């Protein structure tokens, strides 16, 4: 098998051998058909690899670059379009996994407790739960159920003092936990392979769709305690999946 030579063939092929070693390998190759065959296969492999068509990256960088040029952050927030030429100080949020996990557990418990209390209250007093002050605003119970929509538009909440007053503690905490986990997942995204990312995103979409359907149903039937509970459960599953996916990024280190 000429293992002493095959060990050197790679370096020879990569042109990393010194003069004397290179000469020795070449001399051996002249008299050894087996090693010449191995070298030819190596060449074939490299040629094959070089002939592979270029693959586009799984994540498109241009969206981020274009957003920066437009003065819009990757996260969709707006900022100045003209910035003096200076190195900005990056603002980063960093959370350890135990911190995230502990926060999520606490928030989940608070969220579930408040939601069930609200659901129970709305079940006992359907009249008061039927309408909100603005008419279009959902009731307490339904507001909990529609939390993702409310929290997905914090600017709208900020513009309305009444809306802020109606946002429950659990909603804000839930949204914050989801946002933190999504940020952690985004930061660790590079440590996951494309297929895992695709699966996680696909399943998050499935849960988001379930949450949206439950929220829509609850908007039409705000006193329905089953729908409230179902929504709380779906949101908990989203937190679970985000936690699991975030844990995968740390396991892949």
């Amino acid at each position, binding site marked *: *098998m000429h293992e002493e030579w095959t*060990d050197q063939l*790679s370096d020879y092929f*990569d042109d990393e051998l010194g003069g004397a070693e290179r000469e020795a390998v070449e001399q051996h190759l002249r008299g050894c*058909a*087996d090693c010449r*065959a191995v070298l030819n*296969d*190596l060449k074939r*492999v*490299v040629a094959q*690899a070089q002939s592979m068509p270029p*693959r586009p*990256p*799984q*994540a498109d*960088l241009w969206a*981020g670059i274009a957003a*920066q040029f437009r003065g819009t952050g*990757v*996260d969709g*927030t707006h900022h100045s379009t003209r910035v003096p030429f200076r*190195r*900005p100080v990056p*603002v980063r949020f960093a959370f350890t996994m135990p911190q995230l996990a502990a926060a999520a557990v606490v928030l989940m418990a608070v969220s579930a407790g408040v939601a069930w209390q609200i659901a129970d209250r709305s079940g006992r007093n359907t009249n008061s739960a039927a309408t909100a002050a603005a008419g279009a605003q959902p009731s307490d119970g339904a507001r909990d159920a529609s939390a993702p929509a409310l*929290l997905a538009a*914090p600017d709208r909440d900020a513009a309305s003092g009444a809306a*802020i007053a109606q*946002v429950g*503690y659990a909603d*804000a*905490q839930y949204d*914050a936990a989801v946002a933190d986990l999504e940020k952690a997942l985004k930061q660790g*995204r*590079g*440590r*996951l*392979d*494309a*297929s*895992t*990312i695709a*699966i*996680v995103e696909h*399943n998050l979409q*499935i*849960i988001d769709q*379930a949450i949206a*359907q*439950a929220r829509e*149903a609850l908007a039409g039937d705000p006193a329905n305690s*089953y*729908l409230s509970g*179902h929504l709380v*459960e779906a949101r908990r*599953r989203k937190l679970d*999946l985000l936690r*699991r996916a975030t844990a*995968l990024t740390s*396991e892949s280190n």
Partner: protein
Amino acid sequence: MPAHLILALLLMAPTDQTVQVAKGTKLDVNNFAGDVVIKTWDKDAVRVEVNHSDRETIDIKQNDQTLTVRGRSSRGPLRSLDYNITVPGWMAVNVSGNYADVTMEGVGGDVTVDTTHGDIKVRGGSGFVSLKTVMGEITLEKAKGRVEVRDVNESIHLADINGDLSAESTNGSIILDRIDSGNVDLYTVNGNISYDGPVRDKGVYRLTTHNGMIAMPIAERVNATLTARTYNGSIRSTFTLPGDTPERRGKRLTLTLGNGSAHIELESFGGAIALRRPGEARPETERKRTRDMVNKVLEKAIEDAKEKDKSKEKGKGDQFGLAGFGIDVDAVVAEALAEAQAAIPDAIAAAQDALRLAMPRAVPRPRPDPR
């Protein structure tokens, strides 16, 4: 780089090591990628068999009450390794991995498996059995004790389970056969749930799906409070329930059967809830069983074809070059390409980090004050 990769494959150095273990020792295996097959024997010893190149080393270490098995690479990333491990029947086993298919047969102690991409097939386990994967089917049979099963993108099949049971998937069905449990919690977002087993007095049975059907057997003589709720689906049964009327049924059904001591909660947002008598046909599971059978036949056909190809290759006589070393050049190229692709996300992340440093960043939005 491909040259290094290929040459490393040239020298195979299989590991076949047997280690004596004391009663109570736990096995802990981590395999980044590859199959892990665990079987049992009647010796107080663990045998580890792995085929690998001389670049890889299998570390088998015993400390305190744990025997750990790990692969490591002296150069470059660790490649796929297939483990065959034989353990005492009493041993507790923990297997983790990223791209690991895990199969266990006859393990009698605690079992925990956690993989990302990979099927899990376990027959046995007692005490605490925990199986987790993100993408892969989970099959568990003949387990006793507390069972926790978590999947994300595939289905779960549990059979002959005795003990508390919790199973969850996001995008997959949960099919159960011959379950004997007084504490059951099953949840999926997108998939069916089909239960099979008696309802114990004072037991709690909670079956929930968002988009799928739920099938539950209800014996003629059962002591349970049954609650079935749906939003877009329907509630139906193959028999007449006591006190049931179409008006009462609708989207919500609450019935007290016998003394009502057990609690059965069935909830499907968008699917049907089907009640049947034990032993009646389970059409909801037939499609899966048929698909599984077809898959098995296909797998067998593929294996047979591979074997035939190997026989033909052997008949070609002596070969020079890499084929002479038993190396499939195309497969090695594909592996190298896969490794290169796996590095792409890191490169993108690094580029994005560099971009963030080079370009102005957005100011983070203030969070709403909960007060």
